[in-house]
């Protein structure tokens, strides 16, 4: 009871604050000119990667140079980004602007903790048409837009050129090619491929085989049908039947990209983040890429995206929106693209020379046309845990494909039904 009363009181205070801000803006006292907007905003970004973190710092400095009346304080959260934001939200102390991952979106938006950007977008001249449509949908809920995509990444197949040449192999063009190349290139402690026990890789196969993770109404897990079973059978066949793939940690690597850089795996399925990683850590390894070949049912890849959004409680809505506009705008995204970290979410950068002149980047950008956004709603952490456990128990030989997926679907459904 006490929490309810407290909750109501907080809600009342919140709405008064919102009303006060809204009133200020509409009464003409608020700024209508970008240069007149003032305020200080706290901006939280996931800073797990030092290079990316320093880039964000630079963009924020550029922003403050452009809008001298707005001050931005960077709050980098190195790890457990959503956990930190969640506790800050429950203490009503969250930053004004923040990275909105699909996971954050999934728990914060339904609870009314994120600001609907639609009215501010029209006020400050941002159009939804500027962005790639499939990247806008993850941030939409009942007609509201809770964040704007800042960039995206998706999956392609990277292969080690020198290992392929040494074995007299051409770049693969089909899954049959990949399967036979993986067998040929497996020698001693080196594997042809490294497929992890990770739904963030396997689901590309699942969708390509015509399977689905959730039913169309998103209320039930359905990834144990025949198509999904075929997908997991194929995914695990590299490791179990052919012995041509192994988990990255069995290859002495922390993730598949690490195994690829150490030349312990000749092929990996990864995203654009591999390019700067290879450049910085393993510059001598020469590699190429192909789009994931067509699976039995369709072409498939997974789309990972992050956005910038605002807290529903921010007192500086206009400043926050201008910040989001800048951070998802052309100037910043062009620099992101050149840094090689991620691909631009904006249509107007699709023909940028940084994309068209680099075949690997072009493969990544083009894969977006058939890739599926990897997000499964409020219970996605449980759903992904269930999927990961299924893949892992099959790859470790603890379970057969059918019973692993049946169990995972049961676990996911108990989470979906509020268990």
């Amino acid at each position, binding site marked *: 009871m006490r*929490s*309810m009363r407290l*909750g*109501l009181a*907080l*809600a009342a205070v919140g709405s008064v604050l919102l009303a006060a801000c809204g009133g200020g803006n509409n009464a003409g006292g608020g700024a209508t000119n970008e240069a007149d907007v003032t305020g200080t905003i706290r901006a939280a970004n996931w800073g797990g990667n030092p290079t990316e973190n320093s880039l964000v710092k630079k963009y924020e400095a550029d922003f403050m140079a452009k809008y001298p009346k707005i001050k931005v304080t960077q709050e980098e959260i190195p790890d*457990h980004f*959503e*956990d930190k934001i*969640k*506790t800050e*939200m*429950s203490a009503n102390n969250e930053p004004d602007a923040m990275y909105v991952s699909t996971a954050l979106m999934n*728990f*914060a938006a339904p*609870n009314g*903790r994120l600001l609907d950007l639609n009215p501010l977008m029209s006020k400050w001249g941002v159009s939804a048409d500027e962005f790639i449509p499939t990247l806008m949908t993850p941030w939409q809920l009942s007609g509201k837009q809770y964040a704007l995509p800042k960039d995206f990444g998706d999956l392609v197949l990277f292969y080690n050129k020198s290992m392929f040449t040494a074995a007299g192999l051409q770049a693969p063009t089909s899954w049959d090619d990949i399967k036979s190349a993986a067998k040929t290139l497996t020698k001693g*402690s080196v594997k042809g491929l490294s497929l992890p026990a990770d739904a963030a890789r396997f689901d590309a196969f699942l969708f390509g085989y015509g399977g689905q993770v959730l039913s169309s109404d998103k209320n039930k897990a359905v990834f144990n049908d025949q198509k999904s079973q075929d997908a997991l059978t194929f995914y695990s066949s590299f490791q179990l039947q052919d012995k041509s793939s192994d*988990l990255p*940690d*069995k*290859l*002495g690597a922390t993730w598949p990209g690490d195994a690829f850089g150490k030349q312990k795996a000749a092929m990996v399925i990864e995203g654009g983040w591999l390019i700067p990683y290879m450049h910085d850590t393993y510059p001598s390894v020469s590699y190429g890429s192909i789009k994931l070949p067509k699976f039995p049912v369709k072409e498939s890849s997974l789309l990972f995206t992050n956005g910038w959004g605002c807290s529903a409680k921010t007192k500086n809505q206009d400043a926050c929106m201008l910040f989001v506009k800048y951070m998802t705008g052309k100037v910043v995204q062009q620099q992101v693209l050149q840094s090689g970290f991620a691909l631009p979410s904006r249509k107007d950068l699709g023909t940028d020379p940084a994309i068209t002149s680099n075949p690997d980047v072009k493969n990544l950008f083009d894969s977006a046309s058939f890739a599926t956004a990897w997000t499964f709603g*409020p*219970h996605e*952490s*449980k759903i992904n845990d269930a999927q990961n*456990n299924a893949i*892992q*128990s099959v790859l*470790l030989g*603890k379970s057969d494909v059918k019973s692993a997926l049946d169990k995972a679907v049961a*676990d996911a459904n108990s*989470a979906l039904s*509020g*268990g």
Partner: protein
Amino acid sequence: MAVSVAPKASAATAKVNRRSKGGGMAIAQRRAGLLFVTPYILFFLLLQLAAFAFAIWVSFHHYDLLALDNPFVGLRNYARLTVNEDFLIALRNTTEYAVVVVILQTAFALLLAVLLNSKIKGRNFFRTTWYTPSVASSVVISMIFLYVYHPTGLLNSILGLVGIHTTEAYLQSTTWALPAIMFLNVWTTAPTFMLMFLAALQDIPKEIYEASSVDGASAARKLFSITIPLLRPIIFLVVSLGIIGAFQIFDQAFIMTKGGPLKATLTVALLIYDNLFVDTGAVGVACAEAIVLGIIIFALTLISRRVIDTKIEY
């Protein structure tokens, strides 16, 4: 004492007089005493008792960190634990872990203490080096052991030197991950308990050993008939602290395995964390799990007190 206060009191007002009749210095002492314990009492009330009471309250509600309305659900969170597969797995893992770790670390600590208590050369050197792992933060130790257990890490290199060539990835194996964490924990906590045993060993009167030597007792006989019985109170302390620590195992598993592979190292504390922060709406369940864990630890401590009789006569 009251005498020294009396002259002052007589010069003061009636009010002070009345007080001094109640025992002047005693009150001053009591006040000073209260003053000294107040910071801790405040700390305890605010950060422990209040948090504990709040956790009990939350455990009877469907509680979401971000929701405004958190309805009362009675015992539902507790009832669900009995059919919650993750909780049962975590409880089994934690129990297994606690049994092995408490037995091994108590035995190991006692062994080290007895060794250090005998007159061996370089005692101070051993005392310092053996205690080092207990001083380092568990997070740091866990990070170091990530490399020890790595497929091409220290452990496999050493095994290679003695002719066992393996690239076993211990932390990714459902068989080895939990034992790997058990070993790490025995290694880091045993030295702390070694110090407690050592202090207690030095309290045992030498005469008893001398008398037994006269009677012709062997070293082993002395250990089992004199040392261990006389150490009972400290064994109880070590076992209780061991149980409490072992059932709360979190950081090593969190850093090294995140509960994997296939929940092989999922512990109750790790599950509580997951329910609190990863799964948004399960704060009530997490609190129920915490309360159950607390009750288990409390009960086990009482039982160990019963089993290890603490009465001791020299």
